């Protein structure tokens, strides 16, 4: 029992505490981490501090500019924008996170197996990947989303990942092919280690940095895809979803054309901010994985 606790503490230290130290050392990393943390909190505990029910319509308070009562103002229907933003973030971030997880997992699995096994298995998997690569992602997404019309977050996430995994799979395969020829792999084979051990313990740790950083990009891609789908009206209406908010603010409140209603574009600003945060964070993560890039 004590041993398990020790192993856990060691693992936590290695994967959380140490990298955090490196990330927070640079300005870029600190800013990126702060932003991402902010949104993570927004999506998890944010709903506890929301004062208004986002679906309450109150036309008498429609389109009010930011005030003490409504920090971000109200929209066309009199709903508090800040409340909608916070509740909405749950959906957007959760679905996108799951989508990124699916994309990355499938891509990693396909890429490593394909690259390591070679031969027939590789040819088949590469063929499948190539076919998926030629499919235009977003149009397909639109077609499927309009047919399925689901609000189940996991299903949505799966739809978002349908084509996203292919380019990443290809890149991971290329990395695996290179790693396969290295001396320590040859030795591992010679020492009689089974393929599964070589794949998980020898190859995977070397590709992990690449996977994580690409995972972050998959995350942002999924956010755009999701918000885009909702903005185009292709998914069941959820008033607080960022995409829906954007749709309404552009179509009903003329948000793009008039600066006075800028707060209506809050979701878009959030997305941009989150993107910046993630880019900074991934840049800092590169330092974590590659000690040679570190400044200190």
């Amino acid at each position: 029992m004590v041993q398990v606790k020790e192993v856990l503490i060691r693992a936590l230290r290695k994967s959380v505490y140490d990298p955090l130290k490196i990330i927070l050392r640079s300005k870029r990393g600190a800013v990126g981490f702060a932003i991402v943390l902010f949104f993570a909190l927004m999506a998890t505990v944010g709903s506890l501090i929301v004062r208004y029910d986002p679906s309450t319509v109150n036309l008498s308070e429609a389109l009010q500019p930011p005030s003490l009562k409504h920090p971000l103002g109200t929209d066309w229907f009199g709903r508090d924008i800040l409340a909608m933003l916070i509740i909405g973030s749950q959906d957007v971030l959760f679905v996108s996170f799951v989508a990124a997880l699916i994309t990355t997992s499938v891509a990693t699995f396909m890429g490593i197996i394909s690259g390591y096994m070679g031969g027939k298995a590789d040819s088949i998997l590469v063929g499948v990947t190539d076919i998926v690569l030629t499919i235009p992602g977003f149009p397909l997404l639109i077609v499927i989303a309009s047919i399925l019309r689901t609000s189940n977050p996991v299903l949505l996430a799966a739809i978002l990942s349908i084509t996203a995994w292919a380019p990443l799979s290809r890149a991971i395969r290329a990395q695996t092919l290179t790693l396969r020829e290295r001396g320590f792999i040859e030795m591992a084979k010679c020492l009689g280690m089974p393929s599964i051990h070589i794949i998980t313990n020898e190859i995977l740790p070397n590709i992990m940095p690449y996977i994580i950083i690409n995972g972050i990009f998959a995350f942002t891609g999924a956010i755009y895809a999701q918000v885009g789908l909702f903005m185009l009206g292709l998914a069941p209406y959820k008033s607080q979803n960022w995409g829906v908010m954007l749709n309404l603010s552009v179509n009903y409140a003329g948000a793009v054309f008039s600066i006075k209603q800028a707060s209506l574009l809050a979701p878009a600003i959030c997305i941009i901010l989150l993107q910046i945060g993630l880019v900074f964070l991934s840049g800092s993560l590169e330092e974590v994985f590659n000690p040679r890039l570190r400044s200190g």
Partner: protein
Amino acid sequence: MKDGGEIISEYVVETRKLTKEFEVSIGMLKARAKIRAVDEVSFGIKEGEQIALVGESGCGKSTLGRLLLGLLKPSSGQVLYKGRDIWHISRKEFEEFRRNAQIIPQNPYDALNPAKKLSAALIPQILRHKMARGRDEARKIALDLLERVGLSPPEDFIERYPSRLSGGQMQRVVIARAISVKPQFVVADEAVSMLDASLRVEILDMLHKIGEELRTTFLLITHDLGVARYFARNGKIAIMYLGDIVEVGETEETIRNPLHPYTKALLAAIPVPDPKIARERKIIPLKSIDVPSLLKPISGCKFHTRCPYATGDCEKIKPELRLISNRWVACHSP
């Protein structure tokens, strides 16, 4: 090899007419050509022997080394371990062979996983082959191994990443890794070529000591005759040319009195620091300094295009390795 009184084979590792061909595509039209890296090689290594396999780049020695370890599949011919063809045995027997035949790769910087600590380079295979009862015991064995290759204190090293080691230290860890499963046969592929000259003797001596202590048979592949001479001083040396083994014999004797024309040329080509001796040396008049390409098949003896003593037969018939008073030579007129 005696097994319950019955002699299976006098060799630990043996090859019989072992051949390995590689297909390559040449030029724009991707014409396919076959390169015979190893050409019907038949020879054997006895238990506990220290052998140096010498040859110039591209002669097929690395390929032969990997064929001996079962890392490459032969195009034809056999590779035998304790008298059994390794490609025609049960899976369990092959696993047993796997454990007993290890490689020390050429590049120490590449032979360790940069993303893992040294403990991961030693412990997994100890556990896999059930050489310890648990992780703790495996770790003790690993620490012992590090101590044996001269990395002291081992507790300090075992938690390090390879990036924290020097080239010489890395090569020691690689050697520890190779012997961690107590193999009977180890192929060291240019194991010292990437190390500084000052480290070479140390590493070679360590390999010797391990060979004696663990009764391990070593095959050192190298292009450096000096390294071969030092390592195999109490063993044998084998000379390879374009996929053929042309001479095998006791190291000192072979170097002092080479019988095959290629061996003579090779030895004569070693630069000697003393100008007086250099001037007085006999120059072997090779017909050409160009090594023929393996893309075009060469009839008869592969060396006949350059050999100053070539006769008509040499062009037509390929000489087999013959035993001439304690030396194996593949030549019609040694």
